[in-house]
C-alpha cells in the first residue's frame, strides 16, 4: 500500500490535436512505464475507432512511478477521460477520481473549445489545474500570447504554465515535477468507511465486469466481500491491481490509490460507472456522491439489411451491451424493414459508435432509422403513453396532447459569440432562462430547449457558430405539450414507416422539403421513376422524384471480358445487399438517416 501523501491523481485536458496523447506517451516513457520500443503511437486511445476519430470513448488509467527531485518516490496515476458531450457523465466521474489536471494548450493554436468545457467541469470538481503550453518548437508558437489567453479566457495564472514540446521531449521533467509539487495528494479525511468510486468498467469474457476504481477510504483486499451500493450487487474480490500500463496484480488497493477490481460481477450493467464499491461486511454509511443511472436520450431502429441476419444482429447487440450499460434495446418490427430492434442511446455520437461497432466488429450490414427522442402522449381517455418510435403514435383522434422532453442547457462561451449562440438557441425553439457574465469576458447562458432540437446537430452547430469555443452541458427538465405532428415519407405512394418523424408544426414544411430533397440525392436512379413525398396526415407537403435510369449496359463483352464481367455483376449484386428493398424500390442505408444529413 502506498502512502497517500506520495500519490498524485491527475488527468490531462486538451483540445483534439493539441498533443494530449503525445504528452501522455512522453510521461510513460520518462517514468519507464513503457520502453521506446513498446510505445505504440498514442498508447491511451487503444480502440481502433477511437484512434480513427481522434476521440477517447472509454476512460483509461496508467500508474507511473516517479522519483522526484526531492528524492521521494511518487505514484502518479494518469486518468484519461472521454471528450464528447454524449459522454459528459463519464468525464465527470473520471474527474471525480482526480485531484488535479494538466491543461495542455497548443502554443500556436491557443485555447480552444473542448478544452474549455472540460476545464469548467474540472474547476467545478475542485481540481487543481496546471497549464502546459505545448508544441513550443513549432515555428508558429506564440508563448506569450498563449499565456495571456490562459489568463483571459480561463482565468488561470499564465505565468505558471509549463513549457513543453512533447514531440521533442522538452519540458517533460518539469511537467512531472509540477504534478508532484502543485497537485495535492488525495485527502484522507475522517473515516467514512471503505469506499471506492468506479469511474470505468468493461466486460471480459473470462472475468465478467472489470471496474476501474479510485479508493477514497479504507482498503480493498483479495477475497474481500464487496457490495456495489447503487445496484446492490454483492461480489468477492478475485483479483485487483494496477495498470502500468501493463496489468500488475496487487494484494491491496489503499486510500488514494487507483486500480482495477474483479469481483465476480457478471455484467457492466451491475458495475456501473459512478457507483460506489464498499466492504460488504462493514459497508459505508453513504455512497460517494454523483451516481446516476444514465437514461437514453435518443432512440432509433436497428435493422439488418438482410432478414436472415436478424439472429446475428441480436447476438451482436447482446455482446455490445455486455460492455455498454447505457445501450438499451428492445425487439420491434417495421413494415418496411421487417424484424429489428429499437435502441436507446446517450446521444448521436453514441449511436454512431454503436452502429460502426456492429458493422465493423460483428460484420453486420445495418440500417439505422432516423433517431428520435421519446415523446409523452396524453390520450383523450387521459392515459399517458411513452412513444419512442413515431410509427407508434396513436391515431390523431385519440390524442389529447403530445408532450416533448425539454432540457436545461448550460452553455459556456467567450462573450464574442453570445449573439451567434443566442440566435442558434432561438432558432431551436429555446427559451432563455438567464445569462451571467463570469468576468474575463466569459459568459454562461442558460436556455430551456426541446431535447429533439439538441440531439441532432445542435452540438455541431454550436461548435461551428462559436468557432469551437462554446461548451454544452444539459440536464432533463420536464415534458411540455406543443403543436407536434407526425411527418410521413412516402416512396412511390407507400408510407415507409421507418422514415416517419415527429416534428414541430412550424418546422414541418421546411423539414419535409429538406428530407425529400435529401432522399432524392441519396436514392440512386432505378429502372423506373421513384416518387418521394412528405405528408402530414393525408396532406402532401413536399414532393421530389428520382428519374428512371435510362441506360446501363456494357458495350463490349468478348472472350477475354467474360470472367471480369461476371465478377463485376457479382460485385454489383453485393452492393445491392447494402440496399433495402422497399416495395420495388431499392433504398440505400444512408437514406434512412437522411434526417441527419439534411444540413450537408
Amino acid at each position: 500500500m502506498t502512502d497517500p501523501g506520495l500519490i498524485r491523481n491527475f488527468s490531462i485536458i486538451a483540445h483534439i490535436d493539441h498533443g494530449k496523447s503525445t504528452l501522455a506517451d512522453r510521461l510513460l516513457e520518462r517514468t519507464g512505464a513503457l520502453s521506446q520500443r513498446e510505445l505504440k503511437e498514442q498508447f491511451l486511445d487503444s480502440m481502433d475507432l477511437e484512434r480513427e476519430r481522434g476521440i477517447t470513448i472509454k476512460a483509461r488509467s496508467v500508474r507511473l512511478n516517479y522519483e522526484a527531485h526531492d528524492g521521494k518516490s511518487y505514484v502518479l496515476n494518469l486518468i484519461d477521460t472521454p471528450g464528447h458531450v454524449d459522454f459528459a457523465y463519464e468525464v465527470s466521474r473520471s474527474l471525480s477520481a482526480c485531484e488535479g489536471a494538466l491543461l495542455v494548450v497548443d502554443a500556436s493554436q491557443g485555447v480552444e473549445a473542448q478544452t474549455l468545457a472540460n476545464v469548467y467541469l474540472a474547476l467545478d470538481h475542485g481540481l487543481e489545474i496546471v497549464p502546459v503550453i505545448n508544441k513550443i518548437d513549432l515555428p508558429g508558437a506564440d508563448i506569450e500570447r498563449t499565456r495571456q489567453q490562459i489568463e483571459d479566457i480561463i482565468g488561470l495564472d499564465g505565468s505558471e504554465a509549463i513549457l513543453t514540446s512533447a514531440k521533442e521531449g522538452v519540458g517533460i521533467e518539469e511537467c512531472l515535477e509540477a504534478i508532484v509539487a502543485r497537485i495535492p495528494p488525495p485527502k484522507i479525511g475522517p473515516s467514512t468507511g471503505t469506499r471506492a468510486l468506479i469511474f470505468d468498467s468493461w466486460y471480459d469474457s473470462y472475468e465478467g465486469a472489470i471496474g476501474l476504481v479510485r479508493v477514497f477510504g479504507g482498503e480493498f483486499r483479495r477475497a474481500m466481500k464487496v457490495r456495489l451500493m447503487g445496484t446492490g450487487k454483492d461480489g468477492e474480490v478475485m483479483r485487483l491491481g494496477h495498470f502500468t500500463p501493463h496489468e500488475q496484480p496487487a494484494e491491496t488497493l489503499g486510500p488514494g490509490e487507483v486500480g482495477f477490481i474483479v469481483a465476480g460481477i457478471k455484467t457492466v450493467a451491475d458495475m456501473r460507472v459512478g457507483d460506489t464499491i464498499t466492504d460488504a461486511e462493514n459497508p459505508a454509511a453513504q455512497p460517494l456522491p454523483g451516481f446516476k443511472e444514465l437514461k437514453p436520450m435518443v432512440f432509433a431502429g436497428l435493422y439488418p439489411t438482410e432478414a436472415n441476419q436478424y439472429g446475428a444482429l441480436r447476438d451482436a447487440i447482446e455482446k455490445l451491451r455486455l460492455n455498454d450499460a447505457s445501450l438499451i434495446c428492445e425487439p420491434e418490427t417495421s413494415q418496411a424493414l421487417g424484424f429489428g430492434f429499437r435502441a436507446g442511446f446517450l446521444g448521436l455520437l453514441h449511436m454512431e459508435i454503436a452502429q460502426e461497432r456492429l458493422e465493423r466488429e460483428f460484420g453486420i450490414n445495418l440500417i439505422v432509422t432516423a433517431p428520435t427522442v421519446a415523446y409523452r402522449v396524453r390520450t383523450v381517455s387521459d392515459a399517458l403513453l411513452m412513444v419512442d418510435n413515431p410509427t407508434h403514435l396513436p391515431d390523431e383522434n385519440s390524442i389529447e396532447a403530445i408532450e416533448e422532453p425539454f432540457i436545461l442547457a448550460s452553455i459556456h462561451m467567450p462573450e464574442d459569440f453570445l449573439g451567434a449562440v443566442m440566435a442558434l438557441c432561438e432558432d431551436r425553439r429555446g427559451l432563455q432562462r438567464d445569462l451571467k457574465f463570469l468576468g474575463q469576458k466569459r459568459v454562461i447562458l442558460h436556455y430551456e430547449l426541446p431535447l429533439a432540437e439538441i440531439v441532432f446537430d445542435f452540438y455541431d452547430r454550436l461548435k461551428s457558430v462559436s468557432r469551437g469555443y462554446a461548451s454544452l452541458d444539459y440536464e432533463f427538465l420536464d415534458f411540455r405539450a406543443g403543436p407536434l405532428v407526425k411527418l410521413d415519407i412516402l416512396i412511390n405512394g407507400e408510407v415507409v414507416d421507418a422514415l416517419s418523424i415527429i416534428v414541430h408544426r412550424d418546422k414541418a414544411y421546411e423539414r419535409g422539403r429538406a428530407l425529400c430533397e435529401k432522399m432524392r440525392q441519396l436514392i440512386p436512379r432505378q429502372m423506373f421513376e421513384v416518387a418521394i413525398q412528405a405528408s402530414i396526415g393525408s396532406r402532401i407537403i413536399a414532393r421530389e422524384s428520382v428519374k428512371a435510369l435510362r441506360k446501363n449496359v456494357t458495350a463490349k463483352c468478348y472472350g477475354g471480358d467474360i470472367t471480369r464481367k461476371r465478377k463485376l455483376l457479382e460485385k454489383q449484386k453485393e452492393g445491392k445487399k447494402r440496399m433495402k428493398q422497399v416495395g420495388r424500390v431499392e433504398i440505400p442505408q444512408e437514406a434512412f438517416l437522411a434526417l441527419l444529413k439534411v444540413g450537408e
Partner: protein
Amino acid sequence: MAFSLYIHIPYCQAKCPYCDFNSYAAAFWPEAEYTRALIRELECRGDAAPFRGERLKTIFFGGGTPSLFAPESIGALLHAAERAFGIEREAEITLEANPGTVDRAKLGGFRAAGVNRISFGAQSFNPAILKFLGRIHDARQTRAAAAMAHRAGFERLNLDLIFAVPGQTLADVMHDIESAAALEPDHISSYNLTFEEGTAFFTDLKRGRIKPLANDEQAAMYAAVRTELPRRGYAMYEISNYARPGREARHNLTYWRHQAYLGIGAGAHSFARIGAGNRRWWNERIPARYIANVLESGIAESGAEEIDAHASMSEFVFLNLRLREGFAEADFSGRFAASFDEAFGDRVSRLVESGLLIRERGRVFLSERGLELADSVFAQFV
C-alpha cells in the same frame, strides 16, 4: 465439336487513351519471335486436351494491331493452325486492322494468306473526335482502306464506331453512321465509349479533366444507332453489333453463345468444357514473358478458374441475352441439369413484369428497354 481460335497480337503504334486491351505501343516489335511463339503454342495445344482432334470454325486475329504484322507471318500462323487442328472449309477468318497501317499490297497479302474478313477500327469520321480518341488515322484513310479491302477481294468487312464521346453531338453520331454505311461494309459495330480502369481516359475522368455525356444523352445516341443502322440494312443482332443478313460475326457468336474457344498469344483467354465442368484460363499478359514461357514449355498459362454450375448458368444467360434473339429455353435445359425456370424462375417473372425481358415461343430475350438496362437485368442472374 468445331471451335473458335483467337490469336492475340499485342503491339500498336500508339496506345489509344480509351483502350483497356492488352496492348503496348512500340516503335519496333519482335514479329518473328512472337510469331514463333504463337506457332509453338498452337502446336502444343493441338496435341492436348481439350481441343486435340477438333476442327476450327472461326479464327480471329485481334489486338493490339494485327495489321502491323506482315502477311507472311499471318500466313504462317494459319498454316500452323491448319496443321494443329484443321480449318473448316467455310471457316470465317477475321483480322483486325488500323486504317492507318494498311496498303493495297498488304491487304492483298492478307487475303492471299487466307484471311476472308477484315475489321477496321474506323471509330469516327469526325477529325476532332478522332483526335480526341488519340487515333493515328484520319477519315480519308478509313475510306481508302475500305475501298482497298473491297478491291483486294474482301467480301466481308466490318467497321468499328464509337459513340458517346465527350463533345460529340447526336448529329455527329448520325454523320458517322451515314459515312460508315456509305462504305458498304457488311457489318458495323457501334460501341458506347466507356471509361475503363487503367486507361488514360479513366485517369482524366477521376481528375475531372473530361466529363462523360449525361446518361440521358448517351441513351438518346444509343437509340439513334439502333434505329438508323437497321434502316440502312444493318440489323441489330447484339447489344453493339449490326450486320447485313447472314453476315453476323460468327467468331463473336461463339463467345455470346457460351461455346468453346482457344485463345493464344499474350493475355489471351480460353474457355472449354472439361469433363462435367467448364474451365476458363488465360495466358501471361506481358509479351516478352509470354514469348519466354512458350519457348521454354510450349504454353504460357498464368491463371485459370473452374466455373461451377451456377456461374456457368449465369454466364450462359448474360452472354446469350446480349443477342437480339436471346436463347431457346430448350437450349438452356439441354445444357444444364435444370430448366430455366428452375434456375431463375422468380427473377425471370419479375423482369418480365417490369417489361425488361420477353418470353415468347420458347425463347427468352431482352425488350428494347431491357437492352438499355442490360446490366441491371444481367445482375439478376448472378
